[in-house]
């Protein structure tokens, strides 16, 4: 009998055999993550409590000044609230426009399905910068939308850029592929036979959707929403370009403080706050997953 066959027969031996292999496979990624993620985050945490002179040079001492500033200045509270609210709106919009696409993709088969999948995922091949410029061409005062409106007799262009509207539209489109892919993964456990069973039991299509399809796709919705929210709150290129410096969000502020004002401790403090928001979102996701079983 081969070793594999033996380990299949006795489950206890299999456990002993499998665990070290799984651990060994985890070693490289653990090392990469330590160097590439844990260390920089620790560095940020240290930076946020470092003392600096007004010139920006570090003294080597410690200071809670930036944390105090962030905690007491209403600007930063508003910044936090703005960012969370905008990201939530973007998440909700992305979910609303992605769900029908994901459901349709889930139901399609063969070549058509593959073609659609490529169409859904291919935007990710383009940098967000390029896609944002695309949106500028559409949303600006001389853009496609406003040209159309003017041709139809509008007297003044509608402001679609350099405000939250533009940022929301742009980020929603840019984040859709992530949401669709997450929803598709979640819809995988939706057996068409189960929908048929509901139909034969007297459920019209809309009740099949409400009672069967929607509840069974909740894990995908939760995962897609988490991904979209996290990506929305941490993105800064699109808010920067479509917001034109008039939209203040956490991520753009981190960039400004680090690259323009050169106040690294403040940038570090705000970064840690973004990280805390991630933590809250992740904890919430865990709770939702548990509650939907």
């Amino acid at each position, binding site marked *: 009998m081969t070793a594999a066959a033996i380990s299949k027969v006795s489950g206890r031996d299999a456990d002993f055999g499998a665990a070290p292999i799984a651990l060994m496979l985890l070693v490289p990624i653990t090392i990469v993550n330590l160097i590439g993620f844990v260390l920089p985050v620790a560095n940020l945490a240290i930076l946020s409590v470092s003392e600096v002179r007004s010139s920006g040079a570090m003294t080597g001492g410690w200071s809670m000044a930036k944390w105090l500033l962030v905690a007491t200045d209403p600007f930063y509270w508003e910044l936090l609230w703005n960012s969370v609210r905008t990201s939530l709106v973007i998440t909700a919009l992305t979910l609303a426009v992605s769900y029908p696409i994901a459901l349709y993709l889930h139901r399609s088969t063969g070549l058509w399905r593959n073609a659609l999948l490529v169409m859904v995922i291919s935007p990710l091949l383009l940098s967000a910068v390029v896609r944002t410029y695309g949106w500028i061409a559409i949303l600006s005062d001389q853009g496609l939308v406003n040209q159309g409106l003017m041709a139809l007799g509008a007297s003044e262009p509608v402001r679609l850029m350099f405000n939250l509207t533009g940022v929301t539209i742009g980020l929603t489109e840019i984040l859709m592929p992530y949401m669709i892919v997450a929803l598709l993964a979640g819809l995988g456990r939706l*057996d068409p*036979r189960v929908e*048929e069973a509901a139909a034969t*039991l*007297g459920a*019209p299509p809309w009740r099949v959707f409400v*009672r069967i399809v929607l509840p*069974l796709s909740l894990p995908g919705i939760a995962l897609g929403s988490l991904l979209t929210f996290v990506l929305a709150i941490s993105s800064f290129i699109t808010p920067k370009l479509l917001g034109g410096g008039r939209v203040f969000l956490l991520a753009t502020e981190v960039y400004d403080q680090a690259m323009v004002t050169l106040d690294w401790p403040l940038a570090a403090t705000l970064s840690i706050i973004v990280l805390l928001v991630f933590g809250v979102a992740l904890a919430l996701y865990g709770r939702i997953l548990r509650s939907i*079983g």
Partner: protein
Amino acid sequence: MMHQAPTDMTVAAAGPRAGQGYLSLQGLTKRYHDFLAVEAIDLDVAQGEFVALLGPSGCGKTTTLRMIAGLVPTSGGRIVVAGQDLTAVPPHKRDMGLVFQSYALFPHMTIAQNVAFGLEMRRLPRMEIAARVAEAVAMVRLEGREDRRPAQLSGGQQQRVALARALVVRPSILLFDEPLSNLDAKLREEMRSEIREIQQRLGTTALFVTHDQDEALTMSDRIVVMSHGRIEQIGRPEDLYERPATPFVARFVGRTNRFTGNAHGTTIRLGDLAVRAATQRSGPVEVMIRPHRVALAAAGCVPADGLNSVTGIVRRTTYSGDFVQYLVDADGLTFMVEEATVGHGRIAPAGTAVTLTWAPADTLVYEAAP
């Protein structure tokens, strides 16, 4: 080409007259592009009857069932239930219960919620829903498991939930799509009698799709044998087994000896052998003889008058408890013979010279396939 029945006995058609059934399929057809999955099927099922659709995979039986449930659109023909044409009615308005091979329970609902679903769709009062769910759960012997999720139950229990869920709405017709195929052999036999007993107690009309001849034979009032989208034969289990209308039915239902030969009246030449049948025929024919219809005796025994008799040597003997199967070489042909084991009956070992006998009426003769 149509095959003719091997005997001129009129098969007592136990079912209702054409077009008069509680469920009536009239010229039901399903076409996928160039492929005819179901070809103009006519079938009438009486109220309270249990009818099996039997056939190999791809014969169109499941497609037929799914058309009746409204899950597959028809390409032609009509589906009539209790005088009402349902052909264009969507599935949720057909009032049918469907039990799937994969159970298709709602994984996010408890057993009680699964069973209650159809009643909620019918907007029954809460009290009545609770009472009928309890009754249905008791009927399939799952009391105490109402609050479990489907994943926490065994396959057999899940299939009983699926049965309760379909039955609780008191459907006009109960449809089964190979419901026992995913269960192990012992459980399958238990479920057969359980389903049959519940169906008879409630008097529900049932259509049962299966590829398992034992299932069809033991459960059904009548069996519809299908092949390549067409009906080969409709009849009671004993009709199908004793008087198969076509070689296909003879092969598919039960084991059989199969030979090709030439008929001259009631005499048929099978190679060097001449056997007699009860029917007149001429030209090339296919001959089937059921193995348990052949009697085996020691060589030299004088057969009773009028019986076919062949001498041969036992090549292999297989004992399987309730019967013994012999392979006997006789004049270049191999006969399969099955004898029920009776007490301490003698079992002929390989190499024994034997005489095989059977009645001419048990020689089933069919026109040879072109």
